[in-house]
């Protein structure tokens, strides 16, 4: 098996006094789409935020190509080559669309050019001067993904990019995520929409009560559908 690019081991996290993650462990192989599945409040977002260094009190190990990230501040973690698209999308209302798009600094060579980004997301080109938060939900989601493609980061953490969006938009986002994988990005995708996850993902982890409780490769999904549905409680 190829070396994972991201290895999370025994990750624990707290919000104040509440212990949220109780030892999350999983691996992300290079060039794959790995999903974290789980019910509301299972700790998926907290896992991404902890990897990113946004949860203050955390311990365990997060290794990116051999480099230990657990003790680094968020900006250094980002500069190691990881980009983050938050669940609430985080479009800035005091910035227009173009400024939002150009906000994340380049952290490595080989990021997408602005032209290439516009090619993937044509809608953003026409809305450059609009206030970021004036876009529709789907457009804001596109913007939130688009802006992390320019930076040169090769690992993308996407938190529920399909949440609350119309089926056509979900489909577009699915196409884009698959394209990104073809271009060599490694993607860690948090999803509640299992149908979407199973179509896009190569490897799935189930998160429950702040721990990873199961793991399914793409080929194992069909045979375990009942089990997975039970995990997700749908």
């Amino acid at each position, binding site marked *: 098996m190829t070396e994972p690019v991201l290895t999370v081991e025994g990750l624990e996290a707290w919000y104040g006094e509440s212990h949220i993650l109780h030892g999350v462990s999983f691996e992300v192989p290079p060039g794959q789409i790995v999903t974290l599945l789980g019910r509301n409040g299972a700790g998926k977002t907290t896992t991404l935020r902890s990897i*990113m*260094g*946004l949860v203050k009190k955390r311990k365990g190990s997060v290794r990116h190509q051999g480099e230990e990230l657990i003790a680094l*501040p*968020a*900006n250094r*973690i*980002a*500069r190691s080559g990881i*980009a*983050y698209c*938050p669940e609430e999308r*985080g479009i*800035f*209302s*005091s*910035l227009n669309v173009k*400024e939002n798009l*150009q*906000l*994340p*600094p380049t*952290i490595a060579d080989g990021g997408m050019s602005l032209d290439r980004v516009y090619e993937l997301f044509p809608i953003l080109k026409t809305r450059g001067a609009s206030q970021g938060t004036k876009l529709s939900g789907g457009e804001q989601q596109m913007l939130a993904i688009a802006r*992390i493609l320019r*930076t040169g980061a090769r690992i993308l953490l996407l938190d529920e990019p399909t949440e609350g969006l119309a089926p056509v938009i979900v489909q577009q986002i699915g196409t884009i995520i698959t394209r990104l994988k073809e271009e060599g990005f490694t993607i860690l995708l948090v999803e509640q929409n299992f149908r979407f996850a199973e179509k896009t993902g190569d490897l799935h982890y189930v998160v429950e009560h702040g721990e990873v409780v199961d793991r399914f490769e793409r080929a194992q999904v069909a045979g375990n559908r009942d089990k997975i549905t039970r995990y997700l409680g749908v």
Partner: protein
Amino acid sequence: MDFLGVPFPVFAGQLLIGLINGAFYAVLSLGLALIFGLLNIVNFAHGALYMVGAFVAFLLLDVLGIGYWPALVLSPIIVGVFGMAIERFLLRPIADLDHLYGLLLTFGLALLIEGLFRQVYGVSGETYAIPAALQGGFNLGFMFLPTYRAWVIVAAVVVCGATWFLIEQTRLGATMRAAVENADLVRAFGVNVPLLVTLTYGLGVALAAFAGVLAAPIYSVNPLMGSNIIIVVFAIVVIGGLGSIKGAILSGFLLGIAEGVTRVYYPEASNIIIFVVMAVVLIVRPAGLFGKTA
């Protein structure tokens, strides 16, 4: 020649004084607004650092023989660096606590700095000569316009405009605005936000020092000059809308003018007009004239 019931020269004279005061209000409230935006604290040390800016200019001349023009650049740099040290070593360690602590800390600093200068220089004040190039004035026919006062207005407008441009039109400014909105996310994009905060505090304080140098030849260089002006400036920041760059600049100039005009028609009220406006604005538009209503 009467204008709205008073001799025009009287009106114009007060208007000019209002504009000059407005220039100082604008530069000072702009610095406060910058700092409030990123640090979420009202910088009570602002007036004291304005005073230090004037004193640095005075000392540069008195001790080292360095004149007005270099001081206009050097004093903001020196005070700005001092401000960055304050942020880095005093404010940052308490940044996670309630913002009230930051406010109290800067208040304490203001008392400390002012006390120190009073101890050394008393309260009578030192004089600072107007630089040779800016002496004299123009006869406008209806009034005499001292060159230095005209310069103060021009310099304040240019510095406010440049700061506005930096914040609203540049990449760095966009990063600062984004950090005001969601510092964590900006950090997760790889931006060293703590450094940005330190630089912002330094910039805000440098603006105060710049105003201090501008003020030195007009007002006496006095340890209390900061505490005299800063309360009014706080009111102006509230009127403009806490944290609003445009609001701070515009309400600085507008309220200076309002003060001047009031002095023409009802001099007794000129000292409180700004607070009256503040009260009205707070009732009608609690977020301030240019603040975002939450």
